[in-house]
């Protein structure tokens, strides 16, 4: 394994709700190396959303140390974290979060719009590359309302790829999709994994864990399982076995 992309040391996160203190994370520690495909699973209330927010630098831990690509995040200001997100992280959301009335290419360009080092031609070129990488080379000028759910999620993945991030964070990325499309997206994630991308996939769906290289299971703010998947299934093979009539 290569160097660590993510290192968590005894991460705790408390929320104060009224008079009570809710302990969402109670000392979580793990490290993720470059090129891993990690599934973080857990039921609702297990703290996986809180963990995702911390991993994505949207939130900071109450205590503990978080290093993203070797950079300590905890002491950073809001705008420093914004810049860090811009350069190091690609988000993929359950509900795609594409900009309305905006073309696929423009949606993918969005993260680069906030990077002053990248000019408009470079931005366009990289957006096109990312769209080709997710198989949407013929959908670049389609607006978000002219695409299917699977296509929209591909655009969102392309958007997560375009800044060449250290880690891709997927939050229930297949949650809104039908089974066939879900496997298409999983195939895409596996392809990206083979190309050497680091992917963290947060989900409550245990099936996904069969297709990732490592699984972390959370319950009540603790890690209850952290295991390497010895038998990674191919999403492509599963996809072939799916009945065709589910196709739209």
């Amino acid at each position: 394994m290569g160097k660590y992309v993510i290192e968590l040391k005894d991460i705790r996160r408390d929320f104060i709700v009224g008079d009570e203190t809710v302990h969402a994370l109670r000392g979580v520690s793990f490290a993720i190396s470059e090129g891993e495909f990690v599934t973080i699973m857990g039921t609702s209330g297990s703290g996986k959303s809180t963990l995702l927010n911390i991993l994505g630098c949207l939130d900071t831990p109450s205590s503990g140390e978080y290093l993203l690509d070797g950079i300590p995040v905890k002491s950073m200001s809001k705008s420093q974290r914004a810049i860090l997100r811009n350069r190091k992280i690609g988000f993929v959301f359950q509900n795609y979060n594409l900009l309305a009335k905006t073309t696929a290419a423009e949606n993918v360009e969005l993260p680069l719009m906030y990077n002053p080092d990248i000019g408009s031609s470079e931005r366009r070129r990289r957006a096109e590359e990312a769209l080709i990488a997710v198989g949407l080379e013929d959908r670049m000028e389609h607006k978000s309302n002219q695409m299917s759910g699977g296509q929209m999620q591909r655009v969102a993945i392309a958007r997560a790829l375009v800044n060449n991030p250290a880690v891709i964070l997927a939050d229930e990325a297949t949650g809104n999709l039908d089974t066939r499309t879900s496997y298409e997206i999983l195939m895409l994630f596996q392809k990206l994994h083979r190309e050497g991308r680091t992917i963290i996939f947060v989900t409550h769906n245990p099936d996904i864990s069969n297709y990732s290289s490592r699984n972390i299971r959370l319950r009540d703010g603790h890690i209850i399982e952290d295991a390497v998947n010895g038998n990674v299934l191919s999403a492509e093979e599963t996809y072939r076995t799916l009945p065709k009539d589910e196709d739209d």
Partner: protein
Amino acid sequence: MNWTNLFKISLKALSNNKMRAFLTMLGIIIGVAAVITMIALGQGTKQSIQKEISDMGSNIIMVHPGGDRRGGVRMDPSEMQTLKVQNYEALKDECMFLAGISPYATASGQLVCGNNNYPSSVTGTDIDYITIRQLSIEDGSMFTEADIRSSAKVCVIGKTIVDNLFPDTDDPIGKVIRFNQVPLKVIGVLESKGYNSMGMDQDDIVLAPYTTVMKRMLAVTHFNGIFASAITEDMTVLATEEIRTILRREHRLKDGEEDDFMIRSQQELSDMMDMTTNLLTTLLACIAGISLLVGGIGIMNIMYVSVTERTKEIGLRMSVGARGIDIMTQFLIEAVLISVTGGIIGIILGCSACMAMKFLAHWPVYIMMSSVILSFTVCTVIGIFFGWYPARKAANLDPIDALRYE
């Protein structure tokens, strides 16, 4: 910060909501157009009044007999007989700041010529009268010093008189008209001046030597008043003072006694008119300014709605690396774009409306460059001011909450 990109983002956001952006702009458009039109109208009125006054003769000083008390009863000033021929002659001889001076005495009655007649009045004046009042002779000539000395029965008439007494001929020179049994030979016709701003016909005029009017028609030794003109407008005050000193001496008034005459200069009239029209302009500008303010509040309202409606978009932008300041700048640019575009359209609309009023309705309008610049500046300021709070609200959103917002 990358301004070009933020500008592009804002432009895109606005173009995604064209109708709303336009309706928001409408408030500003109407406000700016109103400000420009109202100020142009006010200034136009002011200038046309100023021109009217300077057409009457900008340095004119008018002396009238003052009201007096007789046994506690305040008398009508026109009844007073305090301005005498010798007063006039003293003024004429002694005043140094005057370019011209002329008394006037008016006799009313019916003018008759052949079987035409017309009710008017004859004004007895000195020869300076036409220069003081900025009249000019179109045809024939003005009467002379000799005519005044001899109380000659001659007159100079205006266009209205010509039209009414000589409907059939173009050339009334040399014809004789009768006024209250006194025959007057027409020796000149005045150039037409039209109506003045008070709606008075300035061509309904018959001028005769003041001696003729006073001796032959009225049989009096006092004037209705004296007109004079200062050498320049700046000397009006000095000339007024000079006239006052001489008249007080002539009337043997002691120190502390009130003047028994009144001196009015066009300067006063012009100042008064200026004040009135400035007040009018300010009033109009205030009303228009309020509509601009309402337009600004419209922007704020829409920007607030927009921030709420686009909460999720803001969350996404933050998650892909937009800083608070980027979001804030984006919304500020949107607000300023709306207000400035609205401002430009408003300026064009306002100027067009002014032109339309000028050429179609013939209203006096004068577009002031300063009002255009002012309203444009105000627009930008309004955009920033009313865009500030919604933009700050957007920038302060928590990305986690914003992303989860439904």
